[in-house]
Protein backbone atom coordinates (compact mmCIF):
# COMPACT_ATOMS: atom_id res chain seq x y z
CA UNK A 1 0.00 0.00 0.00
CA UNK A 2 2.85 2.30 0.93
CA UNK A 3 4.35 1.46 -2.39
CA UNK A 4 1.08 2.52 -4.10
CA UNK A 5 0.97 5.73 -2.11
CA UNK A 6 4.48 6.52 -2.97
CA UNK A 7 3.76 6.05 -6.59
CA UNK A 8 0.18 7.43 -6.78
CA UNK A 9 -0.58 10.93 -5.37
CA UNK A 10 -4.38 10.36 -5.74
CA UNK A 11 -4.33 7.86 -2.88
CA UNK A 12 -2.82 10.46 -0.57
CA UNK A 13 -5.60 12.95 -1.42
CA UNK A 14 -8.22 10.23 -0.82
CA UNK A 15 -6.67 9.43 2.55
CA UNK A 16 -6.86 13.08 3.64
CA UNK A 17 -10.53 13.31 2.54
CA UNK A 18 -11.49 10.16 4.48
CA UNK A 19 -9.67 11.44 7.56
CA UNK A 20 -11.44 14.81 7.35
CA UNK A 21 -14.83 13.06 7.01
CA UNK A 22 -14.21 10.89 10.08
CA UNK A 23 -13.08 13.89 12.16
CA UNK A 24 -16.13 15.91 11.02
CA UNK A 25 -18.44 13.00 12.01
CA UNK A 26 -16.84 12.67 15.44
CA UNK A 27 -17.06 16.46 15.89
CA UNK A 28 -20.77 16.46 14.99
CA UNK A 29 -21.45 13.66 17.47
CA UNK A 30 -19.59 15.52 20.22
CA UNK A 31 -21.52 18.69 19.40
CA UNK A 32 -24.79 16.72 19.62
CA UNK A 33 -23.83 15.32 23.04
CA UNK A 34 -22.93 18.78 24.24
CA UNK A 35 -26.25 20.25 23.02
CA UNK A 36 -28.24 17.46 24.71
CA UNK A 37 -26.24 17.82 27.93
CA UNK A 38 -26.85 21.58 27.93
CA UNK A 39 -30.56 20.94 27.32
CA UNK A 40 -30.63 18.50 30.23
CA UNK A 41 -28.90 21.00 32.45
CA UNK A 42 -25.79 18.88 32.91
CA UNK A 43 -23.56 21.91 32.66
CA UNK A 44 -25.93 24.17 34.57
CA UNK A 45 -24.59 25.41 37.83
CA UNK A 46 -26.60 23.72 40.62
CA UNK A 47 -26.68 23.65 44.40
CA UNK A 48 -27.48 20.54 46.40
CA UNK A 49 -30.08 20.77 49.17
CA UNK A 50 -31.70 18.08 51.31
CA UNK A 51 -34.96 17.22 52.99
CA UNK A 52 -35.93 14.54 55.50
CA UNK A 53 -39.09 12.45 55.72
CA UNK A 54 -40.44 9.37 57.49
CA UNK A 55 -42.16 7.93 54.43
CA UNK A 56 -40.71 7.68 50.93
CA UNK A 57 -43.91 6.63 49.19
CA UNK A 58 -44.66 8.70 46.08
CA UNK A 59 -41.06 9.94 46.05
CA UNK A 60 -38.55 8.79 43.45
CA UNK A 61 -35.23 9.79 42.01
CA UNK A 62 -35.47 12.18 39.09
CA UNK A 63 -38.67 13.67 40.45
CA UNK A 64 -39.26 17.26 39.32
CA UNK A 65 -39.02 20.19 41.69
CA UNK A 66 -41.15 23.14 40.67
CA UNK A 67 -41.39 26.71 41.80
CA UNK A 68 -44.45 28.66 40.65
CA UNK A 69 -44.82 26.16 37.78
CA UNK A 70 -41.14 26.37 36.67
CA UNK A 71 -38.91 23.33 36.82
CA UNK A 72 -36.08 24.45 39.11
CA UNK A 73 -34.44 21.14 39.91
CA UNK A 74 -34.84 17.44 40.57
CA UNK A 75 -34.43 14.75 43.21
CA UNK A 76 -30.99 13.27 42.75
CA UNK A 77 -30.87 10.57 45.38
CA UNK A 78 -33.09 9.08 48.12
CA UNK A 79 -31.32 7.29 50.94
CA UNK A 80 -32.60 5.38 54.00
CA UNK A 81 -30.30 6.36 56.80
CA UNK A 82 -29.26 4.29 59.82
CA UNK A 83 -31.74 5.97 62.15
CA UNK A 84 -34.62 5.05 59.81
CA UNK A 85 -35.07 8.59 58.51
CA UNK A 86 -35.17 9.00 54.74
CA UNK A 87 -32.96 11.68 53.31
CA UNK A 88 -33.47 13.00 49.80
CA UNK A 89 -30.79 14.94 47.97
CA UNK A 90 -32.01 17.70 45.67
CA UNK A 91 -30.23 19.48 42.89
CA UNK A 92 -31.54 23.05 42.42
CA UNK A 93 -30.54 25.27 39.54
CA UNK A 94 -28.58 28.27 40.87
CA UNK A 95 -30.52 30.51 38.51
CA UNK A 96 -33.61 29.99 40.71
CA UNK A 97 -31.85 29.68 44.07
CA UNK A 98 -32.41 33.38 44.72
CA UNK A 99 -36.12 32.64 45.08
CA UNK A 100 -35.61 29.75 47.52
CA UNK A 101 -34.47 31.24 50.79
CA UNK A 102 -34.69 30.38 54.47
CA UNK A 103 -38.31 29.74 55.46
CA UNK A 104 -39.10 27.98 52.15
CA UNK A 105 -40.79 24.55 52.35
CA UNK A 106 -41.07 21.55 50.06
CA UNK A 107 -44.53 20.10 49.51
CA UNK A 108 -45.47 16.83 47.76
CA UNK A 109 -48.41 17.59 45.49
CA UNK A 110 -50.68 15.35 43.39
CA UNK A 111 -51.24 16.77 39.93
CA UNK A 112 -54.99 16.19 39.37
CA UNK A 113 -56.73 12.82 39.57
CA UNK A 114 -54.33 10.89 37.37
CA UNK A 115 -51.27 13.16 37.43
CA UNK A 116 -47.83 12.30 38.70
CA UNK A 117 -46.56 13.64 41.99
CA UNK A 118 -44.20 16.61 42.04
CA UNK A 119 -42.31 18.49 44.68
CA UNK A 120 -43.39 22.10 44.90
CA UNK A 121 -41.30 24.80 46.55
CA UNK A 122 -43.38 27.04 48.79
CA UNK A 123 -41.44 30.29 49.11
CA UNK A 124 -40.85 31.77 52.53
CA UNK A 125 -40.95 35.39 53.57
CA UNK A 126 -38.89 37.94 51.60
CA UNK A 127 -35.70 39.33 52.98
CA UNK A 128 -34.55 35.99 54.44
CA UNK A 129 -30.91 34.91 53.97
CA UNK A 130 -30.02 32.65 51.01
CA UNK A 131 -29.66 28.92 51.47
CA UNK A 132 -26.23 27.33 51.59
CA UNK A 133 -25.39 24.04 49.85
CA UNK A 134 -26.49 20.98 51.80
CA UNK A 135 -29.06 22.79 53.94
CA UNK A 136 -32.18 20.89 54.94
CA UNK A 137 -35.59 22.15 53.79
CA UNK A 138 -38.80 21.32 55.71
CA UNK A 139 -40.98 18.75 53.90
CA UNK A 140 -44.76 18.21 53.98
CA UNK A 141 -47.38 16.26 52.05
CA UNK A 142 -50.54 17.76 50.61
CA UNK A 143 -53.60 15.58 51.36
CA UNK A 144 -54.58 13.50 48.32
CA UNK A 145 -58.10 12.21 47.47
CA UNK A 146 -57.61 9.01 49.47
CA UNK A 147 -56.13 10.88 52.42
CA UNK A 148 -58.98 13.41 52.28
CA UNK A 149 -61.59 10.62 52.29
CA UNK A 150 -59.77 8.93 55.18
CA UNK A 151 -59.60 12.22 57.06
CA UNK A 152 -63.35 12.81 56.47
CA UNK A 153 -64.19 9.32 57.77
CA UNK A 154 -62.00 9.86 60.83
CA UNK A 155 -63.74 13.18 61.55
CA UNK A 156 -67.23 11.70 61.07
CA UNK A 157 -66.64 8.66 63.30
CA UNK A 158 -66.71 10.49 66.65
CA UNK A 159 -69.79 12.48 65.54
CA UNK A 160 -71.70 9.30 64.67
CA UNK A 161 -70.51 7.64 67.91
CA UNK A 162 -71.83 10.64 69.85
CA UNK A 163 -75.18 10.44 68.06
CA UNK A 164 -75.47 6.71 68.77
CA UNK A 165 -74.57 7.19 72.42
CA UNK A 166 -77.01 10.08 72.77
CA UNK A 167 -79.83 8.11 71.13
CA UNK A 168 -79.18 5.14 73.42
CA UNK A 169 -79.07 7.39 76.49
CA UNK A 170 -82.30 9.13 75.53
CA UNK A 171 -84.12 5.85 74.88
CA UNK A 172 -83.10 4.18 78.15
CA UNK A 173 -86.04 3.33 80.45
CA UNK A 174 -84.69 5.76 83.05
CA UNK A 175 -83.33 8.08 80.36
CA UNK A 176 -83.98 11.72 79.65
CA UNK A 177 -86.84 11.16 77.22
CA UNK A 178 -88.74 8.85 79.51
CA UNK A 179 -88.26 11.21 82.42
CA UNK A 180 -89.38 14.18 80.35
CA UNK A 181 -92.40 12.18 79.14
CA UNK A 182 -93.46 11.35 82.68
CA UNK A 183 -93.04 15.00 83.71
CA UNK A 184 -95.09 16.08 80.68
CA UNK A 185 -97.83 13.58 81.59
CA UNK A 186 -97.92 14.92 85.15
CA UNK A 187 -98.04 18.49 83.85
CA UNK A 188 -100.88 17.56 81.51
CA UNK A 189 -102.83 15.97 84.35
CA UNK A 190 -102.28 19.05 86.51
CA UNK A 191 -103.41 21.37 83.72
CA UNK A 192 -106.53 19.25 83.11
CA UNK A 193 -107.32 19.43 86.82
CA UNK A 194 -106.79 23.20 86.80
CA UNK A 195 -109.06 23.63 83.75
CA UNK A 196 -111.72 21.51 85.41
CA UNK A 197 -111.45 23.64 88.55
CA UNK A 198 -111.79 26.82 86.54
CA UNK A 199 -114.81 25.44 84.74
CA UNK A 200 -116.44 24.41 87.99
CA UNK A 201 -115.74 27.84 89.47
CA UNK A 202 -117.23 29.65 86.48
CA UNK A 203 -120.32 27.43 86.50
CA UNK A 204 -120.74 27.95 90.22
CA UNK A 205 -120.50 31.73 89.90
CA UNK A 206 -122.82 31.88 86.90
CA UNK A 207 -125.56 29.70 88.31
CA UNK A 208 -125.46 30.49 91.97
CA UNK A 209 -125.28 34.25 92.26
CA UNK A 210 -128.12 34.28 94.78
CA UNK A 211 -126.53 31.61 96.92
CA UNK A 212 -123.46 33.61 97.60
CA UNK A 213 -122.62 32.05 100.88
CA UNK A 214 -122.72 28.55 99.47
CA UNK A 215 -120.64 29.65 96.54
CA UNK A 216 -118.07 31.15 98.85
CA UNK A 217 -117.90 27.91 100.79
CA UNK A 218 -117.44 25.97 97.59
CA UNK A 219 -114.89 28.47 96.38
CA UNK A 220 -112.92 28.04 99.58
CA UNK A 221 -112.83 24.31 99.05
CA UNK A 222 -111.91 24.75 95.41
CA UNK A 223 -109.17 27.21 96.28
CA UNK A 224 -107.78 24.72 98.74
CA UNK A 225 -107.71 22.14 95.97
CA UNK A 226 -106.24 24.74 93.64
CA UNK A 227 -103.42 25.45 96.07
CA UNK A 228 -102.55 21.77 96.08
CA UNK A 229 -102.60 21.66 92.28
CA UNK A 230 -100.46 24.78 92.03
CA UNK A 231 -97.95 23.27 94.43
CA UNK A 232 -97.80 20.20 92.22
CA UNK A 233 -97.31 22.37 89.14
CA UNK A 234 -94.55 24.27 90.92
CA UNK A 235 -92.77 21.05 91.87
CA UNK A 236 -93.08 19.74 88.34
CA UNK A 237 -91.76 23.01 86.90
CA UNK A 238 -88.75 22.89 89.24
CA UNK A 239 -88.04 19.30 88.26
CA UNK A 240 -88.36 20.12 84.57
CA UNK A 241 -85.99 23.08 85.06
CA UNK A 242 -83.40 20.82 86.71
CA UNK A 243 -83.64 18.28 83.92
CA UNK A 244 -83.37 20.97 81.25
CA UNK A 245 -80.31 22.51 82.97
CA UNK A 246 -78.61 19.12 83.27
CA UNK A 247 -79.42 18.18 79.71
CA UNK A 248 -78.61 21.47 78.00
CA UNK A 249 -74.83 21.19 78.54
CA UNK A 250 -74.53 17.83 76.80
CA UNK A 251 -77.52 17.99 74.55
CA UNK A 252 -76.76 21.16 72.61
CA UNK A 253 -73.36 20.09 71.18
CA UNK A 254 -74.79 16.64 70.51
CA UNK A 255 -77.78 18.11 68.71
CA UNK A 256 -75.50 20.41 66.72
CA UNK A 257 -73.23 17.50 65.71
CA UNK A 258 -76.25 15.34 65.01
CA UNK A 259 -77.80 18.01 62.81
CA UNK A 260 -74.58 18.39 60.79
CA UNK A 261 -74.28 14.61 60.43
CA UNK A 262 -77.94 14.29 59.49
CA UNK A 263 -77.59 17.03 56.85
CA UNK A 264 -74.54 15.31 55.40
CA UNK A 265 -76.27 11.93 55.37
CA UNK A 266 -79.38 13.48 53.78
CA UNK A 267 -77.26 15.10 51.05
CA UNK A 268 -75.37 11.87 50.43
CA UNK A 269 -78.60 9.86 50.20
CA UNK A 270 -80.26 12.45 47.95
CA UNK A 271 -77.23 12.48 45.64
CA UNK A 272 -77.00 8.68 45.68
CA UNK A 273 -80.67 8.37 44.73
CA UNK A 274 -79.98 10.29 41.51
CA UNK A 275 -76.95 8.19 40.57
CA UNK A 276 -77.22 5.30 38.15
CA UNK A 277 -77.85 2.42 38.86
CA UNK A 278 -79.30 3.23 42.32
CA UNK A 279 -82.03 5.41 40.85
CA UNK A 280 -83.17 2.46 38.68
CA UNK A 281 -83.66 0.36 41.83
CA UNK A 282 -85.78 2.98 43.59
CA UNK A 283 -89.49 3.52 43.15
CA UNK A 284 -90.01 6.64 41.06
CA UNK A 285 -92.92 7.60 43.32
CA UNK A 286 -96.25 8.96 42.30
CA UNK A 287 -99.94 9.05 43.13
CA UNK A 288 -101.30 5.61 43.94
CA UNK A 289 -104.79 4.29 44.45
CA UNK A 290 -105.39 3.12 48.03
CA UNK A 291 -105.38 -0.69 48.34
CA UNK A 292 -108.75 -2.10 47.25
CA UNK A 293 -111.06 -3.53 49.92
CA UNK A 294 -114.10 -5.25 48.47
CA UNK A 295 -115.40 -6.54 51.81
CA UNK A 296 -115.54 -5.16 55.27
CA UNK A 297 -117.29 -3.39 58.02
CA UNK A 298 -118.96 -0.26 56.82
CA UNK A 299 -120.98 2.56 58.30
CA UNK A 300 -122.43 3.43 54.93
CA UNK A 301 -126.10 4.30 54.79
CA UNK A 302 -128.18 3.53 51.66
CA UNK A 303 -127.86 6.13 48.98
Amino acid at each position, binding site marked *: MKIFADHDSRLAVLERKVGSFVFAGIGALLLLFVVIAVEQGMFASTTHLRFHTEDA*SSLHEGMEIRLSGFKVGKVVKIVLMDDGVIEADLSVNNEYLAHIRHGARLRLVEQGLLGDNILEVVSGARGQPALAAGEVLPFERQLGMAALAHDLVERLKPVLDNVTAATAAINQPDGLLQHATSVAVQAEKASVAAIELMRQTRDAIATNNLKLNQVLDKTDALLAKGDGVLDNVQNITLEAGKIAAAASEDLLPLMRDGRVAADDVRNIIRSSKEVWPIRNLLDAGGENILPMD*SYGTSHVQ*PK
Partner: protein
Amino acid sequence: MSSPNKNSLLILGCLMLAACGAAPEKKNALSEQAIMRSERGAAAFVQGDYARALNEYQLALRADQALEHAAGIAVSRINLARVWREMSSPAQAHAQLDALFSPPVLPYPAASLAAAAALQARLYLESDAVEAAAYWLGQGETFCQKTCPAAGSLLLLRAQLAMQGKHFQEASKLIGEAVGLLNADQQAVELANALRLSGEVAYAQGDDVHASSSFEQALALDQKSGLPAKIRLDLLRLAEAAGHAGRKADAQNFAARAQSVSMAIDGARQAELPPAPAR
Protein backbone atom coordinates in the same frame (compact mmCIF):
# COMPACT_ATOMS: atom_id res chain seq x y z
CA MET B 1 -48.98 2.19 40.31
CA SER B 2 -49.13 4.01 43.64
CA SER B 3 -52.16 3.67 45.93
CA PRO B 4 -53.50 7.23 45.46
CA ASN B 5 -53.39 6.73 41.70
CA LYS B 6 -55.37 3.47 42.06
CA ASN B 7 -57.94 5.32 44.11
CA SER B 8 -58.05 8.06 41.52
CA LEU B 9 -58.73 5.51 38.79
CA LEU B 10 -61.48 3.93 40.90
CA ILE B 11 -63.16 7.31 41.45
CA LEU B 12 -62.86 8.15 37.76
CA GLY B 13 -64.43 4.80 36.86
CA CYS B 14 -67.35 5.47 39.22
CA LEU B 15 -67.85 8.92 37.73
CA MET B 16 -67.88 7.49 34.21
CA LEU B 17 -70.41 4.83 35.24
CA ALA B 18 -72.57 7.51 36.83
CA ALA B 19 -72.42 9.52 33.63
CA CYS B 20 -73.58 6.51 31.59
CA GLY B 21 -77.20 6.66 32.77
CA ALA B 22 -79.61 9.17 31.35
CA ALA B 23 -80.70 12.00 33.61
CA PRO B 24 -84.00 11.25 35.39
CA GLU B 25 -87.05 13.10 34.23
CA LYS B 26 -87.60 16.14 36.44
CA LYS B 27 -91.18 16.65 37.68
CA ASN B 28 -92.55 20.14 37.84
CA ALA B 29 -93.36 21.77 41.16
CA LEU B 30 -97.13 21.25 40.85
CA SER B 31 -96.74 17.53 40.03
CA GLU B 32 -94.42 17.10 43.00
CA GLN B 33 -96.98 18.87 45.18
CA ALA B 34 -99.75 16.54 43.96
CA ILE B 35 -97.59 13.49 44.71
CA MET B 36 -96.64 14.82 48.14
CA ARG B 37 -100.29 15.56 49.02
CA SER B 38 -101.37 12.14 47.79
CA GLU B 39 -98.70 10.42 49.91
CA ARG B 40 -99.74 12.43 52.96
CA GLY B 41 -103.37 11.56 52.30
CA ALA B 42 -102.51 7.85 52.16
CA ALA B 43 -100.61 8.12 55.45
CA ALA B 44 -103.55 9.90 57.12
CA PHE B 45 -105.99 7.29 55.75
CA VAL B 46 -103.93 4.44 57.19
CA GLN B 47 -103.90 6.20 60.58
CA GLY B 48 -107.69 6.62 60.42
CA ASP B 49 -107.41 10.43 60.27
CA TYR B 50 -110.04 10.76 57.54
CA ALA B 51 -110.53 14.52 57.85
CA ARG B 52 -106.85 15.13 57.15
CA ALA B 53 -106.84 12.51 54.38
CA LEU B 54 -109.79 14.28 52.77
CA ASN B 55 -108.01 17.63 52.89
CA GLU B 56 -104.76 16.23 51.45
CA TYR B 57 -106.50 14.38 48.62
CA GLN B 58 -108.55 17.47 47.75
CA LEU B 59 -105.33 19.49 47.48
CA ALA B 60 -103.78 16.73 45.34
CA LEU B 61 -106.87 16.76 43.09
CA ARG B 62 -106.66 20.53 42.71
CA ALA B 63 -102.99 20.32 41.66
CA ASP B 64 -103.77 17.52 39.18
CA GLN B 65 -106.72 19.45 37.76
CA ALA B 66 -104.54 22.53 37.28
CA LEU B 67 -102.18 20.41 35.17
CA GLU B 68 -105.04 18.41 33.58
CA HIS B 69 -103.17 15.29 34.64
CA ALA B 70 -105.82 12.67 33.87
CA ALA B 71 -104.17 9.76 35.70
CA GLY B 72 -103.62 11.87 38.81
CA ILE B 73 -107.20 13.19 38.74
CA ALA B 74 -108.55 9.62 38.56
CA VAL B 75 -106.38 8.46 41.47
CA SER B 76 -107.31 11.47 43.62
CA ARG B 77 -111.06 11.07 42.95
CA ILE B 78 -111.00 7.32 43.72
CA ASN B 79 -109.09 7.97 46.94
CA LEU B 80 -111.50 10.76 47.88
CA ALA B 81 -114.39 8.36 47.31
CA ARG B 82 -112.69 5.84 49.63
CA VAL B 83 -112.33 8.47 52.34
CA TRP B 84 -115.96 9.66 51.95
CA ARG B 85 -117.10 6.04 52.25
CA GLU B 86 -115.16 5.62 55.50
CA MET B 87 -116.76 8.87 56.70
CA SER B 88 -120.22 7.35 56.06
CA SER B 89 -120.95 9.73 53.19
CA PRO B 90 -121.75 7.47 50.24
CA ALA B 91 -123.42 10.30 48.30
CA GLN B 92 -120.14 12.27 48.33
CA ALA B 93 -118.25 9.10 47.38
CA HIS B 94 -120.58 8.50 44.43
CA ALA B 95 -120.18 12.15 43.35
CA GLN B 96 -116.39 11.77 43.12
CA LEU B 97 -116.68 8.54 41.13
CA ASP B 98 -119.48 9.83 38.87
CA ALA B 99 -117.20 12.73 37.87
CA LEU B 100 -114.85 10.21 36.24
CA PHE B 101 -117.62 8.89 34.00
CA SER B 102 -119.17 12.27 33.12
CA PRO B 103 -118.13 15.08 30.73
CA PRO B 104 -115.63 16.60 30.37
CA VAL B 105 -114.06 13.30 29.34
CA LEU B 106 -110.33 12.99 29.92
CA PRO B 107 -108.08 10.07 28.90
CA TYR B 108 -108.24 8.32 32.27
CA PRO B 109 -106.27 5.03 32.47
CA ALA B 110 -108.47 1.95 32.00
CA ALA B 111 -107.13 0.43 35.23
CA SER B 112 -108.23 3.50 37.18
CA LEU B 113 -111.68 3.41 35.59
CA ALA B 114 -111.93 -0.29 36.51
CA ALA B 115 -111.03 0.51 40.12
CA ALA B 116 -113.58 3.35 40.16
CA ALA B 117 -116.29 1.04 38.78
CA ALA B 118 -115.43 -1.59 41.41
CA LEU B 119 -115.81 1.01 44.14
CA GLN B 120 -119.14 2.14 42.67
CA ALA B 121 -120.29 -1.51 42.70
CA ARG B 122 -119.23 -1.93 46.29
CA LEU B 123 -121.05 1.22 47.40
CA TYR B 124 -124.24 0.05 45.67
CA LEU B 125 -123.82 -3.46 47.11
CA GLU B 126 -123.58 -1.99 50.59
CA SER B 127 -126.85 -0.14 50.01
CA ASP B 128 -128.50 -3.33 48.66
CA ALA B 129 -128.88 -1.78 45.16
CA VAL B 130 -128.10 -5.09 43.48
CA GLU B 131 -128.92 -4.06 39.92
CA ALA B 132 -126.78 -0.92 40.06
CA ALA B 133 -123.97 -2.96 41.61
CA ALA B 134 -124.21 -5.53 38.79
CA TYR B 135 -124.15 -2.72 36.18
CA TRP B 136 -120.98 -1.20 37.62
CA LEU B 137 -119.36 -4.62 37.96
CA GLY B 138 -119.95 -5.13 34.23
CA GLN B 139 -118.44 -1.71 33.52
CA GLY B 140 -115.40 -2.54 35.68
CA GLU B 141 -114.87 -5.90 33.96
CA THR B 142 -115.04 -4.20 30.55
CA PHE B 143 -112.35 -1.69 31.52
CA CYS B 144 -110.21 -4.28 33.27
CA GLN B 145 -110.33 -7.37 31.02
CA LYS B 146 -108.91 -9.41 33.94
CA THR B 147 -105.54 -7.73 33.54
CA CYS B 148 -105.79 -4.74 35.87
CA PRO B 149 -104.91 -4.70 39.61
CA ALA B 150 -108.63 -4.49 40.45
CA ALA B 151 -109.42 -7.77 38.65
CA GLY B 152 -109.42 -9.81 41.87
CA SER B 153 -111.58 -7.25 43.65
CA LEU B 154 -114.12 -7.29 40.82
CA LEU B 155 -114.36 -11.09 41.07
CA LEU B 156 -114.83 -10.91 44.85
CA LEU B 157 -117.62 -8.37 44.41
CA ARG B 158 -119.20 -10.63 41.78
CA ALA B 159 -118.92 -13.51 44.31
CA GLN B 160 -120.71 -11.41 46.93
CA LEU B 161 -123.49 -10.75 44.41
CA ALA B 162 -123.75 -14.49 43.76
CA MET B 163 -123.92 -15.17 47.52
CA GLN B 164 -126.76 -12.71 47.88
CA GLY B 165 -128.62 -14.77 45.24
CA LYS B 166 -127.69 -18.02 47.15
CA HIS B 167 -125.57 -19.19 44.20
CA PHE B 168 -122.88 -20.70 46.42
CA GLN B 169 -121.22 -22.89 43.78
CA GLU B 170 -120.75 -19.90 41.49
CA ALA B 171 -119.51 -17.77 44.39
CA SER B 172 -116.98 -20.45 45.36
CA LYS B 173 -115.72 -20.63 41.77
CA LEU B 174 -115.38 -16.84 41.54
CA ILE B 175 -113.49 -16.68 44.85
CA GLY B 176 -111.07 -19.35 43.59
CA GLU B 177 -110.45 -17.29 40.43
CA ALA B 178 -109.96 -14.15 42.51
CA VAL B 179 -107.36 -15.83 44.75
CA GLY B 180 -105.44 -16.78 41.60
CA LEU B 181 -105.34 -13.15 40.48
CA LEU B 182 -104.52 -11.52 43.80
CA ASN B 183 -100.97 -10.60 44.73
CA ALA B 184 -100.31 -11.97 48.22
CA ASP B 185 -97.79 -9.24 49.06
CA GLN B 186 -99.57 -6.16 47.75
CA GLN B 187 -103.20 -7.26 48.15
CA ALA B 188 -103.11 -9.05 51.51
CA VAL B 189 -106.34 -7.34 52.59
CA GLU B 190 -108.20 -8.62 49.53
CA LEU B 191 -106.71 -12.08 50.02
CA ALA B 192 -108.04 -12.12 53.58
CA ASN B 193 -111.41 -10.95 52.25
CA ALA B 194 -111.38 -13.84 49.77
CA LEU B 195 -110.62 -16.35 52.55
CA ARG B 196 -113.38 -14.91 54.74
CA LEU B 197 -115.85 -15.08 51.84
CA SER B 198 -114.76 -18.66 51.17
CA GLY B 199 -115.46 -19.46 54.83
CA GLU B 200 -118.87 -17.84 54.61
CA VAL B 201 -119.73 -19.94 51.52
CA ALA B 202 -118.62 -23.11 53.36
CA TYR B 203 -120.59 -22.08 56.47
CA ALA B 204 -123.70 -21.47 54.36
CA GLN B 205 -123.28 -24.94 52.86
CA GLY B 206 -122.87 -26.54 56.32
CA ASP B 207 -119.15 -27.30 56.03
CA ASP B 208 -118.09 -25.94 59.45
CA VAL B 209 -114.59 -27.44 59.34
CA HIS B 210 -113.72 -25.75 56.06
CA ALA B 211 -115.39 -22.54 57.24
CA SER B 212 -113.34 -22.45 60.47
CA SER B 213 -110.13 -23.17 58.59
CA SER B 214 -110.80 -20.31 56.12
CA PHE B 215 -111.74 -17.87 58.89
CA GLU B 216 -108.55 -18.74 60.78
CA GLN B 217 -106.45 -18.09 57.67
CA ALA B 218 -108.24 -14.78 57.14
CA LEU B 219 -107.64 -13.89 60.80
CA ALA B 220 -103.91 -14.62 60.48
CA LEU B 221 -103.65 -12.37 57.41
CA ASP B 222 -105.64 -9.55 59.01
CA GLN B 223 -103.52 -9.74 62.16
CA LYS B 224 -100.45 -9.46 59.95
CA SER B 225 -101.96 -6.45 58.15
CA GLY B 226 -102.92 -4.88 61.49
CA LEU B 227 -106.64 -4.25 60.81
CA PRO B 228 -108.59 -4.43 64.11
CA ALA B 229 -112.07 -4.15 62.53
CA LYS B 230 -111.33 -7.09 60.24
CA ILE B 231 -109.81 -9.09 63.11
CA ARG B 232 -113.02 -8.56 65.08
CA LEU B 233 -115.07 -9.71 62.08
CA ASP B 234 -112.96 -12.86 61.64
CA LEU B 235 -113.32 -13.71 65.36
CA LEU B 236 -117.10 -13.29 65.16
CA ARG B 237 -117.23 -15.59 62.14
CA LEU B 238 -115.07 -18.15 63.99
CA ALA B 239 -117.41 -17.95 66.98
CA GLU B 240 -120.41 -18.57 64.71
CA ALA B 241 -118.74 -21.53 63.01
CA ALA B 242 -117.64 -23.07 66.35
CA GLY B 243 -121.14 -22.60 67.80
CA HIS B 244 -122.72 -24.18 64.73
CA ALA B 245 -120.33 -27.15 65.05
CA GLY B 246 -121.33 -27.62 68.70
CA ARG B 247 -118.01 -26.41 70.15
CA LYS B 248 -119.55 -24.08 72.66
CA ALA B 249 -116.38 -23.42 74.67
CA ASP B 250 -114.51 -22.41 71.51
CA ALA B 251 -117.43 -20.26 70.42
CA GLN B 252 -117.47 -18.44 73.76
CA ASN B 253 -113.71 -17.96 73.63
CA PHE B 254 -113.86 -16.47 70.10
CA ALA B 255 -116.77 -14.24 71.06
CA ALA B 256 -114.90 -12.99 74.12
CA ARG B 257 -111.85 -12.27 71.99
CA ALA B 258 -114.02 -10.37 69.50
CA GLN B 259 -115.53 -8.34 72.31
CA SER B 260 -112.09 -7.56 73.69
CA VAL B 261 -110.93 -6.29 70.27
CA SER B 262 -114.14 -4.31 69.93
CA MET B 263 -113.58 -2.65 73.31
CA ALA B 264 -110.00 -1.83 72.36
CA ILE B 265 -111.22 -0.19 69.12
CA ASP B 266 -113.86 1.81 70.98
CA GLY B 267 -111.30 2.80 73.61
CA ALA B 268 -108.95 4.03 70.93
CA ARG B 269 -111.78 6.03 69.34
CA GLN B 270 -112.72 7.55 72.70
CA ALA B 271 -109.10 8.55 73.24
CA GLU B 272 -109.07 10.33 69.89
CA LEU B 273 -112.29 12.27 70.60
CA PRO B 274 -111.90 15.93 71.65
CA PRO B 275 -112.94 16.81 75.24
CA ALA B 276 -116.63 17.45 75.79
CA PRO B 277 -117.63 21.14 75.50
CA ALA B 278 -118.43 23.07 78.69
CA ARG B 279 -122.04 23.01 79.71
